[in-house]
């Protein structure tokens, strides 16, 4: 499933992106290659720590747990590989026209829906049209808005998306709404079966039986039975076009509470437990009968600063705050090593990662003091804490959502770190999640401890441009906007990388937020499950097999 950006609290992150984790190290656990020859048959039970909603439709699912099913039951045009690049699936190949205005998709001719009907260009076009329909209640429109004419359809100025041309049954030519270098990441690529949904009103898609129980998919597994609050059972699609997969006959996704899942895994009631908390992971790691693995994810935590607030308007103050926080201490101490230092919005796994920023902002309280002094913040009354340039008291207020236990433990550390650098700080009363977001929307939070879950493509648009709705930092910088616009249209990857490098360096220099640490995703499984590669994509059960010897 194409991932979207997540606005998430630290605690919520544990629930989200369970299957969407990241990896490039293979130091502990199993890399899947040493497991010998795959064996067919058997059943694997996977733990889910949040219930399903039960909307198993590529364009209607909204909860992360539902996507675990959709990802197995449906097949996209292309899918990310271990190197964060796209690999052909339903599409054999795709190409831009030389002027970059058109994008042509060539689909495979040998793939069928689970009911035996062929998958064609019509299915893909039908899906895009449904998403652009004014009656559509889902959240995927941004992935279709990139096609010329989609906006007109949504705004009821047109009946069809004008930018789609069906060349033949397996070829589609799409006109871009504006030039994009990363169009294949921007475009919706998961078709739903036209022949099943043709007669269904778009607003009724969410509760249709073909979304809820009688799902006609295209992926390696078929939906056999769904009781969303308790379990979902998938069975092998014997006619899957990637020959030899999947290996197991049945996948059972069982909903369990976190506390029970640990015991159930040890007991053998479940075979695979993704999305572990650090505490459970450390506990299960001691169990020699289980395999555990941790992989870097596309999520990171940060302390946002309201750049429009006079308290954080001065770049030197923001830099000082970053220097003052002992981020390495947080990773090693608070996180017990389950995380890694970061200094940029682009994760290490990405091809666009800027290694030059690896050691930016080391913990340096003295440097923080110097910067504050340069900015005119001096300790006027001799209490060891600085006052603002007008001589009035200065205090950083740390805000965080109350459901995040990690933030609750981190906030006092931040306060302590800042005070050691001569900056007074205090923790605000934590706020309930939606209240927190509402206050943030109203610009009433001067700082906020939050996290981002990122897309595989490193495009910062949507969060970082001056006018982006999610630019809650109120970070306004013309150079920033220019670089983001330029990299969005630059199709030469090296040149785009260069632009993104400049952009990450600009952000590092401006320090509009404090990058705290990158997160990891942890999983544990019974060694009877073989062939597991646990990386940023999470587990891929179509590649697994079981060995009960």
């Amino acid at each position, binding site marked *: 499933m194409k991932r*979207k*950006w*997540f*606005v998430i609290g630290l605690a919520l992150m544990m629930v989200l992106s369970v299957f969407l984790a990241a990896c490039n190290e293979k130091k502990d656990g199993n890399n899947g290659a040493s497991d010998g020859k795959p064996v067919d048959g058997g059943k694997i039970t996977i733990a889910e720590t949040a*219930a399903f*909603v039960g*909307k198993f439709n590529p364009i*209607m699912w*909204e909860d992360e747990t539902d996507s675990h099913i959709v990802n197995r039951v449906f097949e996209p045009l292309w899918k990310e590989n271990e190197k964060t690049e796209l690999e052909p699936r339903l599409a054999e190949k795709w190409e831009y026209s030389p002027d970059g205005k058109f994008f042509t998709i060539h689909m495979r001719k040998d793939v069928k829906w689970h009911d035996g009907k062929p998958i064609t260009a019509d299915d893909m076009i039908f899906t895009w049209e449904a998403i652009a329909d004014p009656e559509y*209640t*889902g*959240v995927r*429109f*941004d*992935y279709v*808005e990139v096609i010329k004419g989609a906006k007109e359809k949504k705004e009821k100025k047109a009946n069809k998306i004008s930018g789609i041309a069906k060349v033949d049954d397996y070829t589609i030519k799409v006109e871009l709404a504006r030039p994009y270098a990363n169009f294949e990441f921007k475009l919706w690529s998961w078709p739903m079966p036209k022949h099943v949904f043709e007669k269904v009103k778009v607003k009724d898609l*969410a*509760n249709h039986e073909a979304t809820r129980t009688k799902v006609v998919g295209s992926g390696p597994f078929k939906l*056999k*039975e769904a*009781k969303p*609050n*308790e*379990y979902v*059972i998938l069975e092998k699609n014997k006619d899957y076009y990637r020959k030899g997969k999947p290996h197991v006959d049945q996948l*059972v996704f*069982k*909903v*369990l*509470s976190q*506390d*029970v899942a640990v*015991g*159930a895994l*040890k*007991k053998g*009631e479940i075979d695979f437990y993704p999305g572990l908390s650090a505490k459970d992971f450390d506990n299960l790691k001691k169990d020699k009968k289980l395999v555990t693995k941790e992989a870097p994810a596309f999520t990171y935590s940060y302390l946002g600063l309201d750049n429009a607030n006079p308290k954080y308007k001065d770049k030197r103050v923001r830099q000082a705050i970053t220097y003052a926080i002992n981020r390495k201490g947080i990773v090693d101490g608070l996180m017990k090593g389950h995380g890694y230092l970061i200094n940029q919005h682009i994760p290490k796994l990405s091809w666009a990662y800027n290694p030059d920023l690896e050691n930016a902002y080391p913990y340096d309280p003295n440097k923080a003091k110097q910067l504050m002094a340069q900015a005119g913040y001096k300790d006027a009354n001799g209490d060891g804490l600085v006052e603002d340039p007008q001589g009035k008291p200065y205090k950083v207020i740390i805000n965080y959502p109350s459901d995040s236990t990690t933030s609750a433990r981190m906030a006092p550390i931040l306060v302590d770190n800042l005070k050691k650098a001569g900056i007074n700080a205090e923790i605000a009363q934590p706020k*309930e*999640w*939606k*209240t927190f*977001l*509402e*206050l*943030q*929307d109203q610009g009433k939070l001067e700082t906020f401890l939050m996290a981002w879950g990122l897309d595989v493509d490193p495009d910062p*648009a*949507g*969060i970082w441009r001056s006018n*982006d*709705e*999610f630019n809650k930092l109120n970070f306004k910088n013309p150079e920033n906007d220019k670089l983001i616009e330029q990299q969005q249209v630059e199709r030469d990857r090296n040149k785009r990388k260069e632009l993104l490098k400049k952009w990450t360096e600009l952000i590092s220099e401006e320090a509009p937020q404090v990058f705290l640490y990158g997160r990891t995703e942890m999983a544990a499984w019974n060694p009877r499950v073989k062939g597991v590669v646990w990386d940023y994509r999470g587990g891929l059960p179509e590649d697994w097999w079981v060995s009960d010897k």
Partner: protein
Amino acid sequence: MGKYILRRLLGMIPVLFIISVLLFSLVQAVPGDAFTQQLNPHVDHKYIEEMREKFGLDKSPIEQYFIWLKNFMQGEFGISFKNKLPVSELISDRVGNTVFLAVITLIITYLLAIPIGIYSANRPYTLMDNTITTFSFIGLSLPTFFGALLAIYIFSFNLEWFPSSGTMTAGAGYTGFRLLLDKLHHVILPATTLAVLSVASYTRYIRSSVLEAKRQDYVRTAYAKGLPRKVVMRKHVLRNALMPLITFFGLDLGSLFAGAVLTETVFTWPGLGRLIFESTVNRDYPVMMACYMIIAISILLGNLIADILYSKADPRVRYD
């Protein structure tokens, strides 16, 4: 009696109306709505507004209330903002689960609490009575969450007597009597965990109630008439001592529907409790309102049933 019940039922209408106004105002007063930062950063902000429009959140609260009321009176609970699924569908499954769990819990509670309470009262201040008292207090102070986990580790993981979660065996496809057995097998552990808590308080209550009744003059008279102990206990002591249980029963009946969030979570028992919690977190007003109204109605009905049972049990109480 029929007239009385009818009068009571009619009297519920204005009460429910006031409750619904209060609930709706409270729900509206909470900051944020279902669509606060719900969409992802690529989406133009105006589409969030469009969503609010689609689900009627752009109207004034008073208008929203009357739209809700009109639909509610027609048995139409609306569409969940979060899931975009009909509220009635989200609720129907869970109501069944909640009631099933609660009824079994009540049965276990009464089966345990009444004999233990009477036993204790008949041998006050003995070693056994003190032991029961001690365990009652432990039971009372045991956090549900901890008790539930303990039960799972002992009875499902170690002894393997009961399944640790769910309401039925995944993929077994049982029907009829076999399905009922399977469900009972799954409900016993969560129900017993919940029952242990109430058994503790019920036992204390019954014990003191029986002790009190035994001191009454009519009991002494009964003994003086030469009635055997068993008859005195059954006809004179228990009949009076257990009367207050009817009040308890009425109250329990109401809270049945509220569910038990922690127990439901630990045992993955999809009931109303968890739904209420989640819908509140997500500001899913249609689901919240429907759940709260169900609880309000069941509490009112529970009280009515208790009053009716009272008049049956106690000839002094009459409603005419």
